[in-house]
């Protein structure tokens, strides 16, 4: 069932839980080898290798302009001027930094856009209910607030039941409060769906609150790759958080990693008050199905213990 998706070497991955279970190795949701993408002769992605496991939540960090969005577009199949091997699931969805809703389609039609067949409005309403936007299904996109539009865009991605969800700074344009809510929402949705997520972000805290694994991209490659083995639900005061944060900031080239981050938000060292930021991952008390911090029950396909 090889389908030509990417030019040079292409095949589509369709993760199959059974085969992975029998093989014993964690199944891959993305497999990239020797990927190169150049703009006008200048390589932005340079011989990059990357494997994402099914059901894994990965955060991709990197300086502005290092090629994160370019990598995401390649994985989404939107950029095919590449060389190398790229294997991605057939069912994948993207949410961009801007919601990119079609202004001429009501919200529910936006959600259903591109789905095969003629799905019912109820399908869209189901997805919208999941992001808390059911009552706005019939609205024009111009009447949505920024956060609502972003949630609609998320619903549009989720209704495709993706095996791989690609998020390019989806919270970048949101205010601080809405951003926390949206992060909680994504954590919940991910735990419920169990799809692989690749989240591009500038925010180290966000990466550490949400992800199983953090990648730092530099000079066109994955320069640093670390598991984020923190217990969920997490807060900025979780044990080990500050150390990991300092390490990532150093990898990102920010001097004095534990100190002030670009946004002017100053955290103290490891001894700082822990609860200044609400914890994000859906905990037992959160809405949605109650999940124990025990991860293996949260998303069954997440084979390896990180």
């Amino acid at each position, binding site marked *: 069932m090889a389908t030509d998706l990417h030019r040079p070497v292409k095949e589509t991955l369709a993760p199959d839980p059974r085969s992975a279970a029998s093989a014993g190795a964690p199944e891959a949701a993305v497999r990239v080898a020797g990927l190169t993408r150049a703009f006008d002769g200048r390589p932005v992605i340079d011989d990059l290798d990357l494997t994402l496991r099914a059901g894994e939540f990965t955060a991709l960090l990197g300086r502005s302009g290092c090629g994160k969005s370019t990598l995401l577009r390649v994985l989404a199949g939107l950029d095919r001027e590449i060389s190398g091997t790229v294997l991605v699931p057939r069912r994948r969805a*993207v949410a961009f930094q801007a919601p990119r809703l*079609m202004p001429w*389609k009501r919200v529910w039609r936006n959600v259903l856009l591109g789905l095969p067949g003629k799905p019912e409005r109820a399908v869209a309403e189901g997805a919208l209910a999941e992001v808390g936007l059911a009552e706005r299904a019939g609205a024009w996109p111009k009447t949505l607030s920024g956060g609502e539009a972003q949630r609609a865009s998320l619903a549009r991605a989720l209704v495709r039941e993706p095996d791989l969800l690609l998020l390019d700074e989806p919270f970048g344009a949101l205010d601080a409060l809405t951003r926390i809510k949206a992060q909680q929402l994504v954590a919940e949705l991910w735990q419920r769906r169990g799809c692989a997520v690749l989240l591009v972000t500038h925010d180290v805290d966000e990466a550490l609150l949400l992800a199983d694994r953090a990648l730092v991209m530099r000079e066109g490659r994955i320069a640093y790759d670390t598991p984020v083995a923190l217990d969920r639900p997490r807060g900025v005061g979780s044990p080990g958080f500050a150390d990991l944060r300092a390490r990532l900031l150093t990898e990102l080239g920010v001097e004095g990693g534990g100190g002030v981050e670009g946004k002017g938000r100053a955290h103290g060292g490891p001894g700082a008050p822990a609860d200044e930021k609400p914890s994000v991952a859906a905990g037992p008390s959160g809405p949605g199905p109650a999940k124990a911090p025990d991860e293996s029950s949260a998303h069954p396909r997440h084979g390896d213990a990180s």
Partner: protein
Amino acid sequence: MTISHAPPPPGLSVAPEKSSAPSRTPPDLQAVVPASVRRSRLRSAPRWVRRAVGPLLLLALWQVFSATGVLHPDVLASPGTIARAGADLVADGTLPAAMGVSLQRVVVGLLLGGVVGTALALVSGLSRLGEDLVDATVQMLRTVPWVGLIPLFIIWLGIGEAPKVALIALGVAFHLYLNVYAGIRGVDAQLIEAGESLGLGRWGLVRHVVLPGALPGAMTGLRYSLATAWLALVFGESINADAGIGFLMNQAREFFRTDVIVVCLVVYAFLGLTADVIVRILERLLLQWRPTFTGQ
């Protein structure tokens, strides 16, 4: 306790209030009046009443000038005379028949030009190859003033309906072409990419993203082409017409009937206005999704 300030010189009394914070006059408060209260009577009148005020004033002024003899009937008949002439023309059936003929010319020309213009715009808007083949040609032809083609049209098509319809179609086609083409090319590339990421194929992208995105441009084009259509009609009918409003006007000119001429002009204007209203309604229906400023 030490006193750091020098004691006031004897004989000079210091006002105690002056020594505290610099005295401030209280801020001048202004009421924010709710919009519903603030509206004057004219503002609260229905939209169409407000729109009718200007033309009615002009008409009244004209009647006054005619009645006082400032405006001689040979130069321009008074509104009253014109109304009577109009009523006569309607009563003996001349005007409705002429209107029917003219309207038919416009509709046929509009349809013809609309189909050709839109089709060409789709071809050159949707494909590179089409753009290379069509756009340069159309842009070149566009520099020829279309009214100047009348003599050629008469030679090619005779003096019947064909040259008049062709003239209208030509003017319409250019306007629609330019605006639909610009509309297609102005569609946000980010939305196209989003559509691609949602799994839309080429035809799906055209149908769900490109064409709706080009609709505002197409509506603008439709407006321009309607205006052009009436203009082309007037040009076309002023030569060699044996029926229609232009024919009525030519006849009236020979008998110095300024009232009939004005009636014909009013009919042209009325038809143009009706067309404009239709486009407005269409826009309101088709473009209600547009997040644009609609005035206060």
